């Protein structure tokens, strides 16, 4: 015990002859490695495969990516994509072959990307947009319609048409049959509306939800029964001048801008409580003032809010000045706010359009993307906010 001057600390239980990094230490190391590199780490050995799995489950789980697509407004409309991975706080540049261009790239919710021309309608919804579906254009040509993917159906509704006063029919494309179907009824408020300007769209398993940004009036549509529901009033209050809807943790949320577009006083998040007839909103959180400032950007003008939601994340941006992306992670009923500089510069903004999608990218998706041979991911270093 204390007899001599020498004491010895207990040797490590697993003291082994070779210095090998494994177990807890390996998992902690892997928690600092970006997802794209974990794809390689899985292939190292059985032990590492298990360590990657364990690290992702217990230490640093996968989080949804925000993908910013930049498209040139001139033929051949080349696109470039950058993705932000909040798990590691890194931006990735995604090298991909030019999408066989149909026309302007758009997205109205989650991972859906689509393009339409008078002849063709193309869309993609897997997390990394490896697969594009192409079909004949819907019967009626319209500019800037609502396009939403509900289950296995794509709904095309509203939009504007320069000639004629007849209301534009709603059309549904069924992925399983490869056919278009028509539904004539559409709520009056949605006729003649260019969707990207005035409407916010969200989707769950069964329905599409469409909210008029300025009034908060919301309708929902079930494409399997071709039934419209609503209107519902989702405006959180008179002080909210513009709102957007999305789904976070499988609950519908409303993001509201308070004040007016030249002088936004605040941004808040409400949860739509599942109820019976009455729609109830519960305030969940408020964006910190500093981040509201970043959101406004240089012009300090915020006419509406760009919202992308997936899993427990909400990404917000200023559509007229998307220099900063605001993140909101909702966990255990609380909102955790953060921001990151949008690495896709606005330098030639006149000649480019930016489209935002949000994806639940998993290791399987990364594997497929890399194996396809036409995706390369490069982590961009030194992006400082």
């Amino acid at each position, binding site marked *: 015990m204390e007899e001599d001057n020498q004491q010895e600390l207990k040797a490590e239980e697993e003291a082994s002859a070779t210095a090998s*990094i494994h177990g807890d230490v390996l998992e902690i190391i892997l928690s600092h*490695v*970006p997802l794209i590199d974990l794809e390689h780490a899985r292939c190292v*050995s059985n*032990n590492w495969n298990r360590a990657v799995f364990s690290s992702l*489950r217990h230490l640093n789980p*996968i989080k949804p990516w925000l993908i910013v697509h930049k498209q040139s407004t001139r033929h051949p409309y080349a696109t470039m994509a950058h993705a932000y991975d909040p798990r590691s706080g890194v931006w990735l540049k995604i090298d991909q072959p030019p999408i066989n261009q149909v026309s302007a790239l758009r997205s109205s919710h989650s991972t859906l990307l689509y393009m339409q021309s008078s002849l063709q309608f193309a869309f993609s919804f897997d997390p990394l947009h490896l697969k594009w579906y192409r079909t004949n254009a819907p019967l009626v040509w319209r500019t800037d319609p609502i396009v939403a993917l509900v289950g296995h159906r794509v709904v095309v509704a509203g939009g504007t048409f320069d000639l004629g006063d007849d209301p534009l029919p709603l059309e549904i494309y069924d992925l399983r049959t490869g056919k278009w179907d028509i539904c004539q009824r559409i709520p009056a408020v949605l006729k003649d509306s260019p969707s990207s300007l005035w409407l916010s769209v969200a989707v769950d398993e069964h329905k599409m939800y469409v909210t008029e940004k300025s009034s908060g009036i919301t309708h929902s549509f079930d494409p399997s029964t071709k039934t419209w529901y609503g209107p519902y009033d989702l405006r959180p209050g008179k002080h909210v001048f513009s709102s957007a809807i999305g789904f976070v943790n499988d609950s519908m949320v409303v993001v509201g801008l308070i004040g007016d577009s030249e002088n936004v006083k605040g941004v808040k998040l409400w949860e739509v409580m599942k109820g019976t007839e009455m729609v109830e909103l519960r305030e969940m959180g408020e964006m910190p003032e500093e981040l509201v400032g970043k959101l406004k950007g240089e012009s300090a003008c915020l006419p509406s809010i760009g919202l992308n939601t997936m899993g427990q994340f909400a990404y917000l941006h200023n559509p007229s000045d998307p220099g900063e992306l605001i993140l909101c992670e909702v966990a255990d009923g609380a909102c955790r706010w953060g921001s990151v500089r949008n690495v896709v510069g606005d330098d030639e903004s006149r000649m480019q359009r930016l489209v935002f999608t949000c994806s639940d990218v998993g*290791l*399987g998706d990364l*594997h497929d993307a890399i194996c396809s041979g036409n995706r390369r991911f490069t982590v961009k270093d030194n992006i400082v906010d």
Partner: protein
Amino acid sequence: MADDGVNTKVEAVSKATTETIELRTEDGGVFDVDKPVAMEFLILKSFYEDEGRVFDKTSIRLPNVKQLELSKVIEYCTRALEFGAKSAAAAGDKDAERMVRQEREGFEAEFVDELSNEMLKELILAVNFLDIKEMLDFLIRSVANRIRNRSVAYVRQFFDIENDFTPQEEDQIHQENAWAFEGVDAD
């Protein structure tokens, strides 16, 4: 030394408490370590504090640590304590804080640059054993950086790992466990 007040203060403190602990490594190295530095090793801290041992001039043998690693650990921990003191002294002065931060980043970059891959691994194991949280975090981030954007072959070579997958297994690992990352519970 014609240094700023903080530097001399730190030195004076460590001179005043000339308490040192003798640490012996498994390959025969003997180090006299200042008590504040040694107490950064949580394994030592708990050895003394939790067990209520009297701090006397005894020699402690560290079975899992070699001299080269221990000297590096002592170097890092000594500087870390200095930076901590400088940071505290600079609190409130944004420019001074930034200078300390940059100085620290410079030191850390140089420290890790000089480490071979083998040394980095050995250090991680030693620091993990000695339970030095700050240094472990620093080393882990450094090694994560070194394997970023690297091929599977490089990672295997770096960590000295043998590929124990059969060709069929290699094909399969991407199919299996795919569900595990969709948020579904395993068991």
